[in-house]
């Protein structure tokens, strides 16, 4: 009835152009806004003259930092206990930073008026290279904070340093490697936007926004602007992809709210692509030094990591507040590694804030890339086959639940089976034979391409999380679900997660359908509207299925137990005498005597006399506090053909075996994986946010920030194993970010395997590959200072 590859309910409107996205919303009297942005990465603001803009006939308001400062709103708190400038007052700290906010009668006029604002800047030397941020003579990014003398944000560590050092001191072999996970951007196809509508009469603020966590946004507005929470309604309508870009609040959202209060009219702001790429949450930017200790035959003994994390000018990283480096300490990956330690140092630079985004599961992309590269470096140094090294070190099924060296308790896994399946699907041994022959031919002729095979075996940690350990902005990461069954037996489920394309309208209806034995078509899923849904922290970190999905199953089971009591009253038997089969309760041992869920629903709303204390109706609520995260895993194999003469890389094949436990809707799971695999090709080969020495952003449009098209992507070859999560009500694990986490290392490992190079940093563009072939790969994030 419930689980299975049913077609999506939400498709009907999207196929007809009848989705409702933020920029589709048109309210009576609505005004349009545009943001004036800094041309400098670092500069003092001497003056801001808005008089000419204000006299534009279609302009209704121009808001500056000084105006916000008068209202106490020039700065706003971030999700990492820092503050971020809403509109700059003292100085600008990254190129593209918000300086003024113009509201006009249409979007063209708002843009026109930007050119009429005169800002005088006094340029300052920017901090661009994170590795120079802590130098004694580095310019100070955050001089507005009393007593601050450097650009250091935090130091954070996990694991046992002493035990790890001891293992390294005694190890037969140690490999070390510097790895950069360059700054990239989630770049959802729909950019960020808002329509803010403040009603002067009722005092109610209605906000339509691209919000992955609408309830958190409501709490933020209440906290920042002092508006009573019951007077704030956040509505996240259809969202054109989020990928972590739409979790936090952006300065222009708050400006739109202020502008609506000032003008008394609804105010719409929609950023353009270049604003999205330059100023909203970036991802990654981890400079990592990995060390791996092993025996001479490749048994891994220890892993030691030092990270320099570039957080930009404001620490706005979106993650559980006790985890400044997210879940990076999952970096021991899928292996039984006795000793591990990491230390992460965060620094300010003159760049946009962010860090946690782009399907990273709170820095697990970085962790997974680190370990999967280090295993290949180890195999390279020892002259071993990378598949064999992995197979020899993978956790075994009987070790679960497994507590890793940094403290995570992995729920379940059958890793060798997944890797064996992937190797078999890829025809690994045959590929290696082909590779030898091809390499020989290339060496003889100096022509043609060389083939490479790259493996990545990842373990994810998703479903944040247990409220005792994990909170965002002080809110424990439990999520609610409300279920109402109508008298006719159809139902409405309201959840706190918020789909951005992941198909929740379909899969959450399937969960209810499976538990109650009704058709998914008869279950309406409500999400995104804070007046209509229970509190919760939204959709990111692949947490919907682990947390909200669990809440949905539990609430449906509560309803089923209520239905049992009602059915018992209907049938005049004891509740314990009833037996549930999909959609009906029958009297045990009396064939044919029973009632359906529809009949029970009708009776629950009728004049049927119910036992003492039972109030009637078939409604229930649940708040689900997960006991642990879920740990999906996968084995990925990428096959590439590389032309060493040009550096061109062609992805020939990509085999992906994913295990996310029980699959609610296999069709949707596969679509999630396809999308994440394309991300991996993008990050590994094409995507980069780079800066020049002056802090100019060099990836500010789709002309420079390259995303894979249908031509760069192969036909994905997917495989499945099913290892249920023992603590989840239906054994399901999250999966949305798995492929983005797992795939970049497979692509990089494949390219480096093809050209026989130990390491080169992403993106492996033709230029980078060509230079790697010449033996001099480079740091690609600093284009000018590295002498491009």
């Amino acid at each position, binding site marked *: 009835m419930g689980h299975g590859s049913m077609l999506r309910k939400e*498709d009907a409107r999207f196929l007809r152009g009848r989705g409702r996205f933020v920029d589709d919303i*048109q309210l009576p009297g609505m005004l349009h806004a545009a943001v004036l942005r800094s041309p400098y990465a670092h500069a003092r603001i001497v003056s801001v003259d808005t008089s000419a803009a204000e006299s534009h006939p279609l302009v209704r308001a121009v808001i500056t930092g000084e105006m916000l400062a008068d209202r106490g709103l020039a700065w706003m708190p971030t999700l990492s206990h820092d503050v971020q400038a809403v509109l700059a007052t003292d100085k600008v700290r990254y190129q593209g930073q918000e300086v003024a906010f113009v509201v006009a009668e249409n979007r063209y006029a708002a843009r026109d008026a930007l050119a009429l604002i005169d800002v005088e800047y006094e340029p300052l030397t920017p901090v661009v290279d994170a590795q120079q941020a802590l130098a004694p003579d580095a310019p100070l990014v955050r001089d507005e904070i009393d007593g601050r003398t450097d650009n250091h944000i935090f130091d954070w560590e996990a694991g046992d340093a002493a035990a790890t050092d001891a293992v390294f001191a005694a190890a037969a072999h140690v490999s070390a490697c510097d790895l950069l996970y360059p700054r990239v951007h989630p770049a959802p196809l729909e950019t960020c936007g808002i329509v803010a509508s403040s009603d002067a009469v009722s005092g109610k603020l209605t906000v339509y926004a691209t919000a992955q966590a609408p309830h958190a946004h409501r709490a933020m507005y209440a906290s920042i602007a002092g508006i009573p929470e019951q007077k704030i309604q956040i509505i996240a309508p259809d969202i054109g992809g989020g990928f972590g870009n739409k979790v936090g609040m952006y300065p222009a959202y708050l400006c739109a709210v202020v502008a609506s209060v000032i003008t008394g009219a609804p105010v719409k702001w929609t950023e353009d692509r270049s604003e999205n790429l330059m100023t909203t949450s970036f991802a990654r930017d981890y400079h990592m030094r990995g060390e791996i200790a092993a025996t001479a035959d490749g048994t891994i003994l220890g892993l030691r990591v030092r990270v320099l994390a570039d957080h930009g000018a404001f620490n706005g990283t979106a993650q559980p507040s006790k985890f400044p480096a997210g879940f990076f300490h999952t970096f021991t990956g899928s292996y039984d590694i006795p000793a591990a330690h990491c230390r992460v140092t965060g620094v300010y630079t003159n760049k946009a804030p962010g860090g946690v985004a782009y399907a990273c599961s709170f820095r697990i992309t970085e962790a997974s890339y680190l370990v999967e590269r280090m295993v290949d470096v180890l195999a390279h140094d020892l002259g071993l086959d990378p598949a064999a090294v992995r197979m020899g070190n993978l956790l075994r099924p009987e070790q679960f639940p497994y507590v890793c060296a940094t403290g995570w308790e992995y729920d379940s896994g059958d890793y060798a089976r997944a890797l064996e399946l992937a190797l078999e699907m890829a025809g690994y041994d045959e590929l290696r034979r082909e590779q030898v022959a091809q390499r020989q031919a290339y060496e003889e002729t100096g022509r043609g391409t060389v083939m490479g095979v790259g493996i990545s075996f990842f373990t994810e940690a998703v479903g944040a999380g247990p409220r005792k350990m994990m909170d965002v902005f002080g809110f424990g990461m439990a999520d609610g679900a409300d279920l109402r069954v109508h008298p006719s037996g159809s139902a409405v489920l309201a959840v706190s997660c918020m789909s951005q394309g992941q198909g929740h309208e379909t899969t959450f209806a399937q969960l209810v359908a499976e538990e109650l034995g009704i058709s998914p078509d008869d279950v309406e899923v409500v999400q995104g509207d804070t007046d209509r849904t229970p509190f919760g922290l939204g959709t990111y970190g692949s947490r919907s299925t682990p947390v909200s999905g669990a809440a949905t199953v539990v609430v449906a089971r509560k309803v089923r137990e209520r239905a049992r009591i009602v059915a018992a009253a209907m049938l005049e038997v004891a509740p314990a005498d009833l037996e549930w089969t999909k959609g009906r309760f029958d009297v045990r041992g009396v064939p044919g005597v029973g009632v359906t869920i529809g009949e029970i629903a009708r009776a629950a709303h009728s004049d049927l006399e119910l036992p003492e204390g039972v109030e009637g109706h078939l409604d229930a609520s649940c708040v689900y506090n997960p006991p642990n995260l879920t740990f999906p895993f996968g084995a990925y194999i990428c096959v590439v053909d590389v032309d060493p003469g040009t550096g061109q890389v062609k992805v020939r094949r990509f085999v992906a075996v994913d295990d996310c436990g029980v699959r609610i809707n296999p069709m949707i799971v596969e679509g999630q994986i396809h*999308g994440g695999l394309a991300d991996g090709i993008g990050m590994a080969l094409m995507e980069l946010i780079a800066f020049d020495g002056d802090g100019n952003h060099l990836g500010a449009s789709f002309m420079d920030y390259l995303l894979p098209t249908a031509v760069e992507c192969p036909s994905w070859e997917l495989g499945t194993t099913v290892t249920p999560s023992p603590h989840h009500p239906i054994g399901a694990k999250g999966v949305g970010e798995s492929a983005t986490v797992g795939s970049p290392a497979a692509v990089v490992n494949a390219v480096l395997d093809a050209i026989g190079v130990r390491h080169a940093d992403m993106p492996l563009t033709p230029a980078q590959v060509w230079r790697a072939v010449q033996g001099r790969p480079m740091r690609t994030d600093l284009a000018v200072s590295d002498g491009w």
Partner: protein
Amino acid sequence: MSYGQSSVVREVGVDERRITVTVNGEKRVVEVEPRLLLAHLLREGLALTGTHLGCDTTSCGACTVLVDGTPVKSCTMLAVQADGHEITTVEGLGTPSELDPVQEGFSREHALQCGFCTPGMMLTSHALLESNPDPSEEEVRWAISGNLCRCTGYQNIVKAVLWAAEKKSGGVS
């Protein structure tokens, strides 16, 4: 909430041109600034919000519409240039009750997730099948290479277009 006409097409004191465009078979006469992009005329002037904007450099193709049957990125065409031409948007691709085979294929093959690229992607695919009723996978991939998708990894889009081709040739029912 309404999707009413906004001020981009009627604005006092601005140089405006009267143009006639046929949109999804319906003749529309509107007055527009010469600089108004076709995408904004469709979205804000005519309330056809299925056409989306995903970039500012003509890269993503979310705004693709058919101009006299040819796919065009409507963010890179002025509304005045559409004067006298026939435009098809996603709202005119099928009828409310009967979907175009491409639309049906997208649903059956799960070729959309967030749905933001979908209108442009389907219009490009529709035009491909008009000119090449039996494309290879490779031809489909090249045909849609001007349309970016961030969700699907393209595979199911390719399958959807091939499904639609087969349906149009009478191969599936």
